[in-house]
């Protein structure tokens, strides 16, 4: 493509933030190692150099303090972007997130808005063990009062960040480490795509059809979308046409797109790197079975992280993670294809 501008998710996030900061003086960024270092995962690179220390602030390791401070600043006319370096660290600061950020709009009857973005990294696969590898999509999406998004590619990353920054509500922006395009965490080529230079929004609450198909619907988010796409490619060779739905947002959830896809295919597989029980996978399946049971030609399947803490050793972790092989096997099973291929 001519004039193609392929960016990593990390750069797309930084670009969206910079563009909003140019237009809106109320936007400022704070978090650990986000200024001088440009973020451990690269998503704030260049911001300090352009906007200076007043608006791009390295914080002490005090998540309760600075996320709580973001809530206060948001209620006072600012638009803070804060980073929780790994989502796993939510344990030390969840009150600020869930009892303040997520509830103050409601409790104040709309007297106060809390327009802020909380960026946080998710995901494993590189042996960092269970205090640095979780997704926790379901934990955040379960709790009312905050929007939750997670991009699978750089185009959506930029558009979702812009939309999040313009949203009058708190938005949890979860970015998967394996998709950031930081070489030291591996590279997912499919996440590095063309990104227009000018500012644009990707609507929060709108899923995308990442690949069209007629035989089975694979629903996922972030890294899981890439597993789904790889599986779909292989399934196509075996005569099974899989449709891949990239949720992009968990809150609000685009139930219509999920239902419409399953109405077409009659089969559903949910791929979720978060824990199996009480999470996103169950919610997606309920979305279909509650209202569209008759569409289903086979029981839905979920490929999720088993209900165990994430282990360090490669063989242990890889055993638990979703991957294209597991999706292919599940798809063949519910499509009635002989197993194995």
């Amino acid at each position: 493509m001519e004039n193609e501008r392929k960016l990593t998710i990390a750069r797309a996030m930084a670009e969206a933030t910079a563009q909003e900061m140019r237009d809106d003086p109320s936007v400022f960024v704070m978090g650990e190692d986000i200024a001088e270092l440009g973020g451990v995962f690269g998503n704030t690179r260049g911001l300090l150099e352009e906007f200076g220390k007043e608006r791009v602030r390295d914080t002490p390791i005090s998540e309760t303090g600075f996320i709580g401070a973001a809530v206060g600043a948001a209620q006072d006319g600012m638009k803070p972007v804060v980073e929780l370096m790994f989502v796993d660290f939510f344990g030390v600061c969840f009150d600020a997130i869930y009892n303040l950020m997520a509830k103050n709009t409601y409790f104040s009857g709309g007297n106060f808005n809390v327009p802020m973005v909380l960026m946080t990294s998710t995901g494993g696969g590189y042996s960092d063990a269970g205090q640095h590898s979780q997704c926790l999509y379901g934990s955040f999406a379960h709790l009312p009062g905050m929007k939750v998004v997670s991009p699978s590619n750089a185009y959506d990353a930029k558009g979702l960040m812009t939309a999040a920054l313009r949203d009058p509500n708190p938005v949890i922006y979860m970015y998967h480490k394996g998709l950031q395009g930081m070489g030291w965490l591996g590279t997912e080529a499919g996440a590095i795509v063309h990104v227009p230079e000018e500012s644009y929004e990707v609507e929060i609450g709108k899923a995308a059809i990442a690949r069209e198909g007629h035989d089975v619907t694979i629903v996922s988010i972030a890294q899981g979308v890439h597993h789904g796409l790889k599986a779909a490619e292989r399934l196509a060779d075996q005569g099974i046409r899989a449709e891949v739905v990239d949720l992009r947002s968990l809150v609000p959830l685009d139930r219509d797109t999920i239902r419409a896809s399953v109405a077409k295919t009659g089969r559903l597989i949910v791929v979720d790197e978060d824990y199996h029980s009480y999470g996103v996978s169950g919610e997606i399946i309920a979305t279909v079975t509650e209202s569209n049971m008759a569409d289903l030609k086979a029981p839905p399947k979920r490929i999720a992280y088993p209900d165990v803490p994430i282990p360090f050793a490669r063989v242990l972790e890889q055993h638990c993670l979703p991957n294209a092989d597991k999706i292919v096997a599940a798809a063949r099973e519910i499509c009635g294809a002989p197993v194995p291929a």
Partner: protein
Amino acid sequence: MQPAKDTLAWMYEKMVTSRRFENAIEKIYMEGKSPVFNMADGPIPGEMHLSDGQEPVAVGVCAHLNPEDVVTATHRPHHQAIAKGVDLKKMAAEIFGKATGLSGGRGGHMHIFDADVNFACSGIIAQGMGPAAGAALSRQIQGKPGVAVSFIGEGAANQGAFHEAMNLAAVWKLPMVVVVEDNAWGISVSKEASTAIQRNSDRAAAYGIPGHYIPGNDPMKIYEVAGEAIARARRGEGPTLIEVETYRLAGHFMGDAEGYRPDGEKDGLFEKDPIPAMRAKLLADGNFTEAELDALEDKAQAAVDEAIGFARESADPKPEDALTAVFA
């Protein structure tokens, strides 16, 4: 209180063990990670936080501890684990993610647990503080001997858990000692940029307990001050907060380009490497001969070689083992 000769020998040997162990880990960590550095690759995947330079803190404190005493450590635990007497072979195997590791490969380098010597870790900043206070409380309630030491980085003193546990320990006069390893950096953020006061030990005043700052990364001085604090805790007189000036000779983790360090900072640091400094001091004081120190180094190296060999040769866990040991 000056360490006796056998204590000095132990301190030197453990410092060297820790350094040689990390030298070995550092090399093996890079296997399979070049030309492209991907953390997921090689015999030791994941993050790797080395403690090179910080060995004096571990030995100066742990020289006063017995296996029954409790230590909680951080994401940078090797030196403390070695000084506390964690089984080196099983620890190496854990860092390699092998079935013979302390936790069968479930924990890895940031989650070193050895119940035999009461050693535990958390990779979440300052989260060793509560458990150390709890272990101290348990000893107090049960009337069992033993103190709890929580090692943290200077960056952790800005975390809520630090203050909550500190106050708890002070108000209940718990047998606890908090040792802050001030290596000047929390990843890329300097102590100066993140901390409202120069010395975290001054925060002891807020809890009405003794606070000590130890400059110079000096194992003898650390030994002396930690000895007083631990003895005080054993006597039931309550907690102490100690901050030690130390240096991280490596990056925050392996792969860290360290662009945030001022020019030349690291050259200066290597000149202050505490291990050659201790060797020189032991010789200058006339306590040890070259041959005695060489023998201690050889012993350390042999232990490291044995541990690394054991880890290399051990088998991987069975993949399905991931699903076990969630509950007791």
